[in-house]
């Protein structure tokens, strides 16, 4: 694991939320997204947004999410995705 990658692990949930605001919601700075908000129910990410999150997690955290792990258990909230990423890196 490179130094660069481990630095980026500071507060992954916030990084995930930042990515959703900037990339998926097209730089929507006004929206307030909590770590435990249901991203899917609130339509903050849709099925195509999920695919972009998978790319982002690979790029940002060096974690490859296999297709069978792309489930609501891991993508419902930023907090759940963060836990998944940390577990995969442990």
């Amino acid at each position, binding site marked *: 694991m490179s130094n660069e990658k481990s630095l980026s692990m500071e507060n992954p949930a916030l990084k995930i939320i930042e990515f959703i605001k900037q990339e998926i919601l097209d730089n929507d700075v006004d929206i307030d997204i909590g770590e435990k908000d249901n991203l899917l129910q609130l339509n903050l990410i849709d099925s195509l947004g*999920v*695919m972009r999150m998978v790319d982002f997690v690979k790029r940002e955290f060096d974690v490859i999410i296999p297709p069978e792990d792309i489930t609501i258990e891991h993508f419902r909230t930023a907090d759940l995705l963060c836990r998944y990423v940390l577990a995969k890196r442990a």
Partner: protein
Amino acid sequence: MNYPPYKDIYLLHQTIALHAERDPDATAFRFQDESISYAGLYEQASRLSSVLYQLNIQPGDRVGIFVFKSLHTAISVYGILSAGAVYVPLDPLMPESRLTRIICDCNLEVIISERSRLPILRKAAANARRLRAVIGVENSGDEFEGITWSDVSSQPASHTRPVSVVEEDLAYIMYTSGSTGVPKGLMHTHKSGLSYAKQSAHTYGLSPSDRLGNHAPLHFDMSTMEYLAAPLVGATTIIVPEDHTKIPVSLAQLIENEKLTIWYSVPFALIQLLLHGLLHERNLSSLRWIIYGGEPFPTKYLKELMVLFSNARFSNSYGPAEVNQCTFYHIPATENYSDDSVPIGKPWGNTQVLVVDEQDNTVAPGETGELLVRSPTMMLGYWGQQEMTARSVFIDCDKYGVEKKFYRTGDLVCARPDGELLFMGRKDRQIKSRGYRIELDEIESALYRCDGVQEAAAYGVDGTDGSQSIESAVILKNGANLNSSTLKKLISAHLPTYALPQRITIMSEFPRTGSNKIDRLALARSIGGQKQTA
């Protein structure tokens, strides 16, 4: 098929009373791990109707349903109907301005909602002062009274209160986006809703042992299959949570775990399942019907799905929300598909269709014209829009002065030699470019034929010369090595030169409507007509 138990039913909420008596423990609705039986639904609906009486809701009054999917969705529908009132489904994610507009438009004094919607309800209540009570939230000294679900449950269930409602009375108002951007409310009656439920139950042979997946949200007209037709026969509806609809692997798990027998959705949901649902790892043999509607299904995906779901029959359902549904086409397993789209089929029972030209004269068989529909499933009209309602119908008057009222669908169809109707596009999806008449759907199907294209949309862009030009956008499959010039070359093999899009924009996603249809208007607005960079 014969339905002796249903012959005396003429109001929508009589269906749950019937099954509460005949098979009280049968599951009516399921959501996540919770179930409600027909007896339970009948009890809860009666209690809710008591609360509505106490709030002085009269027969014909409108009551909003502003909740995310849950068992409360079903209880709300039947509680409101039991009170003789009219339910108005509201998208829980709609912005405050639209909510306020609808509250004022159909005079909603009571809304059933939930705590998470309180901030937006407070804003709406400040602007639309008529809102006086919200059921499903605690009383917190707001502009409106709050009534919790436990308050509702502590009510006595009174089944005997007489309500003066007949089948011609309103049952629900469904708001759709109007072409002008102003939402319009489609008024459906007990008669139109029940006529739809009966035809649907008959067409797909619904039975008490069926388990229907409710994919569509309540505010989308496709949900009437699960909320109205399933309770008619005493079947079980599994309400699919919003988050499952966004994650194909989880959706496929739900279909397997809940042993769904009937699936009904827009093609988009099925295509996502096919592409990302890991269907090979699932046992989905419980499905006996896969019904789609709302827009055409790209045939290459349909073919792949039919191979994967070899136990299920596939059916294309068709009908604007104004008539619920009016035609169907059961897709033969053996049909040798070309890339022509699948027919929308023939009218179902108790329904007459006409195919007419611009002068409302019936066209010759095989010619394209607008589809007009006459059926008891038809809406009463648009709420508060008499002129718009009048424009939407065609009155055929015979020499004795007897009138037949048809709904103008705005959809173009033509009949195959075997009588099956083919959808030829929207009347307003046909554009003229330099004098040529062009079907945008034709361009999309040409793009779909290209290997590597996942989704395609074509739209007209107003040019400076008064003519329209065609542009298009595509989403590529992962790893597809295509650019716009190679795509243009590929589709030029199928299209006349004048029908080639001026530009093909490669995108990672499309704007979509609430029901996941491609929002071509938004596409045209966002990228249409922009200067090309290359």
